[in-house]
């Protein structure tokens, strides 16, 4: 087991399960959101389109997309976001987080309780015949923020809130992957202990053939689904990460398990896997 691994503490009381009201997402809502974010309210000056399950508002280099199923949205400045303009960004995590918070507050998007999950950096490097690294620079910093409900972070398979800053500390993208949280539906019946949840995760991985399991981290959180899934309830879950080794130890794999924290969850914590068509045997003379 990894040295830093520890089990999360079990709260002393049950936790609320929240109802998630269905998002009201349409072109009108997209335009209203664009106006709120200060990128223009007049649809005659914008490009409106539907791309898959998203509504997209474009104006100049700005692109705002809004997911129909979840209400998640993202604003990108395509002229600046992830673009290498030859500069190097030198900023500490705390300063980046402060700038991100200030930006979210100015857009009235700052959660009342939050945790900074991570500050990531976009790096570039190049090397040629002399085999030395040239031009290693950081071209942006992204602050990954999670809202906190009842002292638990809200997690999910996308990013929750991300603010990306370039070398001039200009915001180049804003991701807001959060559903509106409604009233408490009910309290959890009883919470499973973290030992029990870890044992379930281990069992899943052993059934899949893992011979050695190294847990990395485990968190108790509220679990949100990805952008294009509908979700009715926000429920507590254990998020477990591990490194798995199979029969050939030269191969290792990162693995994630999401285990319901409630002994009797309101609905499955994750959507059912899509049915897979069986593979027909490939002919032996193919080329």
């Amino acid at each position, binding site marked *: 087991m990894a040295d830093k691994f520890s089990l999360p503490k079990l709260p002393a009381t049950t936790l609320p399960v929240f109802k998630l009201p269905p998002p009201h997402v349409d072109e009108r809502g997209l335009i209203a959101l664009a106006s709120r974010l200060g990128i223009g309210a007049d649809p005659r000056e914008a490009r409106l389109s539907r791309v898959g399950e998203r509504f997209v508002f474009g104006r100049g280099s700005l692109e705002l997309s809004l997911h129909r199923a979840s209400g998640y949205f993202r604003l990108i400045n395509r002229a600046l976001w992830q673009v290498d303009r030859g500069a190097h960004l030198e900023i500490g995590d705390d300063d980046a987080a402060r700038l991100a918070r200030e930006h979210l507050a100015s857009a009235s998007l700052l959660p009342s309780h939050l945790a900074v999950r991570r500050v990531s950096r976009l790096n570039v490097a190049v090397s040629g015949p002399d085999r030395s690294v040239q031009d290693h620079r950081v071209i942006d910093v992204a602050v990954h923020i999670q809202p906190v409900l009842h002292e638990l972070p809200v997690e999910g398979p996308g*990013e929750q809130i991300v603010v990306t800053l370039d070398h001039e500390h200009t915001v180049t993208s804003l991701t807001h992957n959060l559903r509106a949280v409604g009233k408490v539906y009910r309290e959890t019946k009883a919470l499973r202990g973290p030992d029990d949840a870890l044992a379930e995760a281990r069992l899943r991985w052993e059934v899949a053939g893992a011979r050695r399991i190294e847990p990395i981290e485990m968190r108790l959180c509220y679990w949100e689904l990805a952008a294009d899934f509908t979700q009715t309830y926000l429920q507590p879950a254990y998020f477990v990460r591990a490194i798995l080794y199979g029969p050939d130890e030269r*191969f290792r794999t990162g693995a994630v398990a999401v285990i319901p924290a409630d002994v009797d969850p309101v609905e499955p914590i994750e959507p059912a896997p899509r049915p897979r068509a069986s593979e027909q045997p490939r002919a032996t003379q193919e080329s």
Partner: protein
Amino acid sequence: MTTITIGVEWINRFTGGCSQNQLSDMDSHARGFKEHMVSHGHIAMFDWGDDNAWETDFRHPDFGSGGDSLNWSDNVNFCYFADHGGNWSSTVNIAFSKSRNACLSSSSTWKLGVKNLKWLVLDICDGTLDTTVPAVIDVWLSRMQGVHIVFTFVNTTSPWGADEGRHFGDAAGQGHALANAWLDAMFGSSIDNTPIAIAAGATRDEAINRRENEAISWRDYSVSNTSWLAWKWRH
């Protein structure tokens, strides 16, 4: 519009005689990519999963009998491979479910891009072990023989969602810069992974230009020789 050809291979279940632990969502990653590229007008040439994905599809014929890369992985412009990966002795190795003709394929048997391949996704762990010159140049410089960009991961990643390949295919199919699209689709702060894109060029400027700007419309802008690599990663 530039139309490109696509081939995908993926393995979830190792039930064909070669022994690895099972994976999940590899089919969704590879097929999500393929389906979204097709929705943008590109052409899917093959989709081999589990026991139908073969080592010979990646081995160049110079490296022994049966090497058939010129008819499969190197016969399309964009190949997406989702599976286990391992990295030792400055080679990347990918694992197959069924031995045809081997359970593993080593990058020492690859000549990526000598025919049609421009872009290769290795949606695997350990595509590089870190971002230093030995980890990137020693593994990739000699293997990239015409391919423009390789997309993979530093160290381990955790395949846990069905959407990542779809998001990458959607952005690539819309004509966005490929390296940026890969990093954006694959990075996850919760899983602490490090996606990386490695671009080739005959010159320093060419490699950097591909890393920053190359899109699928660059299909016919060939890499005349791979003397430089420019890479980009989020961590």
